[in-house]
């Protein structure tokens, strides 16, 4: 059965009576939805369907997973800076113009300091709900934005798998709420969602509204009509249409209810701030969100990234930090059921270029937030910035990002070792100790 939770809002019923032949043993909402879309009930031989039904029997118990994609290639060597003498010397030698002065770093441990623009995150690090993993990357360097993003979100190197990793995560669970997998801040879903499991992508909750359906009667008419005219349409058209219809009523209830962030949380007035505020609203309204995805782009700082006094990097790190701090503040104790993880397609070259920027590199730092995070510490093996330690001039990656995600999925999101092996084909058994085992 679908997950039964005490909800503060009714989730829109997914199924419309479809006049299909009765199939009582599979009369789950997910199936009705599928049948309603095509008007055909036949040939349940699809592996995807069986997977879903087989695993869907158990309600999801786990954290809401928030994936924040820092698109463009974040220069995390400016965010988490090696502060101890020898490593700092390498750093400043490579980056004479953009290096953060040693005495302005916010100390994190004996070896690393944080960029001062990230001060809003410092209390969360100190409280143990923000963790950092250094030198993370894919198994092979990939310095092309587009192919690196695609490859990272496919997360199945050396295979012909075409779906995204989040789609495969969702494929383990029964389709429940239309908000189960939601991208906020964009009308287009990340390629990590590519595949059969439906996802919802929207700019924001406020704008998610159907023109012309001005009252409940009109809403019902449009709903039935739009479902009807997508009968038998190719899934590339029908799937998002049905997801939209499923989500409309809930969105309008959320709008009417309004939203005020708790605990005095102050989100920056920006796309990132708005998107994270909407994620927090969805979590608190308990609409069945399992996975949220948010993008924060414009990290491709080939030129003019500025120095510690100001500029592109300072602005970006500042917005990033204040938005994350507001999100965690707003959710308060609910962060016990949330794990947020950042990913970027690659780190940047250790040496600055001639334009006051940095070119595409390899190893990156990953940030994890949540009460289940082993925070207040820096994880990962630091490969070093000495010339012999670099890979084509880049920081090496000593932790495969898929192992990090596997730890989060197994310990926080109810996935078994077998599930993880299916999500990340060919993955080894390394599970970095970045999060605690969830109690239940």
């Amino acid at each position, binding site marked *: 059965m679908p997950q039964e939770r005490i909800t503060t809002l009714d989730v829109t019923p997914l199924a419309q009576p479809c006049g299909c032949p009765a199939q009582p043993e599979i009369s789950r909402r*997910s*199936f009705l*939805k*599928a049948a309603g879309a*095509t*008007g*055909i*009930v*036949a040939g*349940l031989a*699809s592996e*995807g*369907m069986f997977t*879903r039904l087989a695993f869907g029997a158990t309600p999801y118990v786990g954290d809401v997973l928030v994936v924040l994609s820092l698109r463009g290639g974040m220069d995390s060597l400016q965010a988490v800076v090696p502060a101890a003498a020898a490593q700092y010397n390498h750093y400043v030698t490579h980056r004479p113009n953009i290096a953060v002065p040693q005495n302005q770093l916010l100390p994190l441990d004996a070896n690393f300091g944080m960029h001062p623009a990230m001060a809003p995150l410092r209390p969360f690090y100190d409280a143990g709900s923000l963790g950092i993993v250094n030198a993370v990357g894919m198994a092979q360097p990939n*310095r*092309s*934005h*587009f*192919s690196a993003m695609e490859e990272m979100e496919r997360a199945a190197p050396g295979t012909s798998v075409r*779906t995204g990793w989040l789609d495969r995560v969702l494929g383990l669970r029964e*389709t429940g709420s239309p908000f189960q997998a939601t991208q906020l801040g*964009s*009308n*287009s*879903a990340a*390629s990590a969602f590519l*595949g*059969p499991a439906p996802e*919802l*992508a*929207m*700019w924001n909750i406020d704008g998610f*509204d*159907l*023109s*012309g359906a001005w009252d409940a009667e009109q809403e019902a*008419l449009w709903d*039935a009509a739009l479902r*009807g*005219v997508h009968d*038998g*349409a*190719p*899934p*590339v*058209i*029908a*799937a*998002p*249409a*049905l997801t*939209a219809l499923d*989500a409309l009523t809930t969105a309008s209830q959320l709008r009417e209810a309004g939203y005020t962030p708790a605990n005095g949380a102050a989100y920056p007035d920006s796309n990132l701030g708005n998107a994270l505020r909407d994620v927090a609203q969805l979590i608190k309204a308990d609409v069945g969100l399992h996975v949220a995805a948010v993008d924060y782009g*414009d990290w491709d700082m080939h030129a003019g990234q500025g120095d510690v006094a100001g500029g592109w990097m300072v602005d970006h790190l500042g917005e990033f930090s204040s938005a994350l701090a507001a999100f965690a503040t707003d959710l308060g104790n609910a962060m016990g059921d949330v794990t947020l993880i950042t990913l970027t397609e690659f780190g940047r070259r250790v040496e600055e*270029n*001639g*334009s006051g*920027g940095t*070119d*595409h590199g390899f190893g990156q730092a990953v940030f994890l937030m949540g009460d289940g995070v082993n925070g207040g510490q820096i994880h990962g093996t630091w490969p070093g910035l000495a010339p012999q330690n670099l890979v084509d001039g880049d920081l090496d990656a000593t932790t495969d990002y898929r192992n990090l995600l596997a730890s989060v999925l197994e310990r926080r999101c109810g996935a078994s070792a077998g599930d993880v092996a299916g999500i990340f084909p060919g993955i080894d058994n390394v599970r970095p100790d970045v999060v605690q085992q969830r109690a239940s």
Partner: protein
Amino acid sequence: MTTDDGGAGLATAAVSRRNFVRAAAVGSVLAGSGVAAGMFDALPAGAGGSLVATGPDLHLLRRATFGPTEELVKDIRRLGRNRWLDRQLHPSSVNDGFCQDYVADRYPDLDMTLKRAFETLEGSWDLMYALGQATIVREAWSNRQLFEVMVDFWSNHLNITNPHEACWWSRHDYDRTVIRKHALGKFKDMLRASATHPAMMAYLNNAESTKDNPNENYGREILELHSVGVDGGYDEEDMRQSTLVLTGFGFSWDTGEFEYRDWAHYTGPVDVMGWHAANKNEDKGKDVGLAYVNYLAHHPSTAERIARKLCYRFVSDDPPQSLVDALAETYLDHDTAIVPVLEKLFRSKAFDSSVGEKVRRPFEDVAATLRILNIRPDPEGVDGQQGLYWMTEGLGHLPMGWVPPDGYPDTGDPWRSAGLTLSRWNMHVGLAAGWWPANHLKVPNIQKNVLPATLPKTHGALVDAVAKRLVFRTLPAAHRDAVLAFLGVAAATPLDEDDAAVGWRLPYLVALILDTPSHGIR
């Protein structure tokens, strides 16, 4: 074999056995998995073949234009597909007076020289916004539709985001002297023009790349995006060499024009993917760079990549390799000329049998909706186009507005989005009902526009007539039933001129028909 050289003209669009078998296979996938667990990645959009109007004329119009109109259907029937296509491939033979005059009147600064723009604009973004609006006007209302489709194609292939802060004085000139000038010419000329344009030099940071401090942005993207592609056969060392070859290509801070700066150029032997130059003299560095660019334009990997992208644009999200190979060969045989490639593509059997295999992306939906509703540009000023500009930006598909340098995706999957779908439904209602931004455009009376001269006798006949007017066919039975249920009537319910369906509900009826896959598939 799925292609022929079509010397005898366009192959017929009779349903081939192969096509039928394929459609049947698609049906079984649909039946097996439905939407929620669809075998989505294995599904060609061929399932849409049964939902769009049949016939080769409409197939060609859906693919080669931003949307069929009643007038275009008359044209292609009068001229025949061959002559219609020939004229579109030679756009100077198509009268486009209205659109040219309109753009010249509303956006007169678009022909400003680089130098003058650099000297007078003082960092203003006005000209970039004007270009964005003019592009919408041309795509929606030019008679040279295939030319505008190709402008859009190349604007994405050699993407420079518009607007972009580094291109305030140059983006309009890039559109005119790089993209539009060569859109139906030779790719080698377009690639060379882009490599010697200040907009590209600024956008991808090559203007800052010097022998001592190379910036790899352009050196990488000219390989990965503009020519051979990420799997085209180069490695990281090739990429670094590519960057060095192009050091010195930049622009002048005095005039804003392209400038080769010999002091910045790396000298010494350079090798990229088997191309080699001694590159001894910095004063000859521009010639070395241009020889390299020319080499890239003629590389077999470039030919294959452009051929495949053209197939994504015009044929299918999963085009047959034999067609890609045939087009790549044509490209190389004709010294990178595009028209022979397009002739081959549109006259291939693979094209004929691809009915229903493409879906409209959001802007293509906007343009097709404007066109089928006979909506015309702002008769007073530019507010209407400005509204379309913001509306299209909200739909995530502003022409030239893609932010990363790889251009908008041209296959259906990446556009699969509930939010976009909802926005498109709202767009249909807004344009049909004459709400913003249509209130600033020239919108014909909806009754005169979509109803037949003689009022149909029943509601069923009304739905059929409006569907034929908007999607050139009656709706499949299930969809027709859904539309009638929306109107709260049966097919046989008599229609009177006072009925809501031809009164206040008519715009909603129109919008609902535009919401059907018969409009969403191209």
